[in-house]
């Protein structure tokens, strides 16, 4: 609400949001036993990163002068999204395969290669 009062959004705010999402994603990866949960964690992490990119890229948020990244930020964000899609597809395929072979999606069971 302070923000609403002062009415100025800065890059930092975005960064903080990104940080929270990032952390949430990491925790998600670390906690979930369901492989798909891990995947969702990854998505969260990527989005956290994306927010930072966009924030640095937006000339709207930047103070006086050019935004640090300019258009590059958005392009990066775009590529991240695309690659995230690819990653999701492959990861899902792997998960299904794992499910077909082991009858579970519990990542703790996926330790055939443990030392």
């Amino acid at each position, binding site marked *: 609400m302070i923000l609403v009062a002062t009415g100025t959004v800065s890059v930092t705010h975005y960064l903080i949001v990104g940080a929270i999402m990032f952390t949430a994603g990491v925790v998600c990866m670390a906690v979930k036993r369901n492989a798909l949960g891990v995947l969702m964690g990854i998505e969260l992490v990527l989005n956290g990163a994306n927010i930072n990119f966009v924030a640095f890229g937006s000339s709207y948020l930047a103070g006086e002068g050019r935004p640090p990244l300019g258009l590059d930020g958005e392009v990066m964000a775009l590529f991240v999204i695309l690659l995230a899609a690819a990653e999701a597809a492959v990861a899902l395929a792997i998960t299904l395969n794992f499910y077909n072979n082991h009858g579970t999606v519990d990542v*703790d069971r996926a330790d055939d290669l443990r030392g």
Partner: protein
Amino acid sequence: MEIATLLPLLLGIAWLVPLASFVAILFFGNRMGPHGKFAANVATAAIGSSLVLSVVALGFWLGHHPPVALSHGEHGEEHAERGDSWLHLTSYAEKSAVRADVSGHGDQEHADAEHHGAEGHGDGHGHEKGLALAEPVAYSGDWYTLYSGGPLRLSIGWYIDSITVLMFVVVTLIATCIHVYAAGYMHDELHPVTDAEVHLASGGPLTRDGRFHRFFQALSLFCFSMLGIVIAGNLAMVFVFWELVGICSWFLIGFYFERHSASTAANKAFIVNRVGDFGMLIGLMALWGGLGTLHFGSSVDPATSDIRPGLFELVRPAAHGHRQEVPDGLVAFAAANEVAGLASGQSDQQAVHGEVAVAVPGWREAGYGRWLLFIAGIGIFCGCVGKSAQVPLFVWLPDAMEGPTPVSALVHSATMVAAGVYLVGRFYPVLTPDVLLVIAYVGGITLFIAATIAVTANDIKRVLAYSTVSQLGYMMLALGVGGWVAGLFHLVTHAFFKSLLFLCSGSVIHACHTNDMRKMGGLLKVMPYTAWTMLIGCLAIIGAGIPFVIGMSGYYSKDAILAQALLFARLNPAHGILYLAVAGGAFITAFYMFRLWFMTFAGSPRDHHVAEHAHESPRVMTVPLVVLAVFAVIAGWGLPGGFGVAGLLEQSRPAGTAVAVSTDAILGAISLPAEHDSHAGDIHVIATLTAFLTAAAGVLLAAIMYLKPLVSPAGLARLAGPAYTFLVNRWYVDELYHAVFVMPTLRLARLVSGIDKGLIDGLINGLAWAARQVAGIDAWFDRTVVDGLVNAAGRITWSTGIEMRRLQTGRLRQYVMFIVVGTVAIFVLATLLFRTSLAG
């Protein structure tokens, strides 16, 4: 198309077609029909097409250069008409020159044009000197230059004159007949063959796959090489194809290589030929070193497009009326020391060349280089001795009969052995009179020895082989005594009837499955075609005919040879023996040929087992017999206007050999007669009569001994005693060679191998032993020290790995936590310890 370009094209294709069929059969032979049956068709088609092409070429040749009427008239008239007849020739030469001039597109034709032009002019000079000389019409040129550096140049080229065209026709014609014949003769090879003459260790006979297609593959290659020799434009090319022919004959003689006799025969033929080729190489080197060219005719240097005179031009320069002389190159070569003397202290090359050029005539007078030319000639002749089985290298030919009969017919009677004679004929202008004398003697000795051996031989093919040798001797002798046309004429006719004879014998062997004449007899009724055609062959080879009227082909050629020999003997009485050799040879020839025929066909069967097996050969074999028989009869005839073999040959008589020359050569004074003089009435008559009588006597003797046995051969043999055994053992030539050459070689080899085994092997073994000791030490070091280190490293790695694997729990979430810990740690370290903030 211009003849100057047309002829090389036609003959070149005719030359290459067999190569194509060879390659085709080489790669796809066994896939051609069942058991490669159609390889025969391929090869035959190839050689047949070459035949067609050659005939076409001959037609073109006759169209452009109609031959000259040879005048067999009186001496006087002949002298009277000689001039204008030669004017004829000259005019032809000039015409050809003009033609070639007109045809001047492309360097090569141009070169021809220049060449002929030059000859034409030189010829003009000849007229003024009153020494009217015929110009042979010849086209020469190069297809492809292999190597050219400085004065030296190697190339694939052609030298085409009437002999070339004629030989093409003859070779391809005979080869075609023999291909057809062989298709029938070799049909056993279509199926697995049981070779009774090979005894395996297991005792039983050998059974092997048929080699039908391989046979025709070798035949095609042979045709290609033979035609290559004929068309060759320079000595190097001749030599290459010379060796190729040798290889083919090796293949073909050793066709039944499982038989010990066959393989040894093949090797013998090859090795003996190498001996001759060694001499040939010497000759080549002499020419190459001295003259820097091996081309027969003048040619154009592609690099600097100037005309380079060929051997013929060099040895018999047109400028000097084609009188034979030692070329400058050889003179300078021989006078190397003098040249060095001139060159010493001189820096300017041009000047040296000038002085040498000035000095050369003097040296030539002084006789420099005559030996070189002599050696060159002798060397080349050595090659011919080997190839056409002259004394002392004739021993391989009879053994070569181990090959299949068509091979004997084609390779070892009609064509390959003829190559030697052909080369002598081709190389004739360069041969000095004393070389010719040597040739004549070699020929004479050969023909006599071979004939005598043939008398006692019982193997039908060997008889023919020895007769071949002696006929070749005839040719050589003819060439040697100056009968250029006579020699080559006999070459052509002999090619026909000898191939005919061989094919007949082949068909006999095919019928009787044996070579031994003593087992034959009375085959006349069983196989009439073979018998009659063979009779024609015999008549042809003994030169039968109605004197002065008409005769078989042999009649003409043999008469010519006799006449020439007689003339020679008259001019230089010292060498009269040559004539006796010829005459005696004719007698013996007649004797053994008819001995052969009578023993084979006449009388009653001696061996019933053979007789009842005997049968007439299939059509595919008899038809070639008939064809060849026809040619054996008519080959010698000449149509009015000289349309005949002799006329054709006359066309390309080497320039300047038509006149009598008398020199005092290295071997004493010789006077070579002009061949035309041998047509003089008296000589002609005497020669003809001699030939007829000797032949008749021979036939008669054979008849009384073998047809109506008034005189028993055995008794005669007992009477002759040692002479007979001497002949039966073939003059002990093989034994002689074995003692003189083979044994010493073997002994030397044994000695060398002894040294090798004892000394060198000992040395090497010692070294090896030492090396092994060192290696032992090495190995110990390796095992203990190096391996120790490596194993230690391995063990350490292993144990660490064992420890580390505990870390890899395979729990994904743990890994994530590790990552987080790492990140945080880095941040904290960076910010706190190093007092910097990673974030900007």
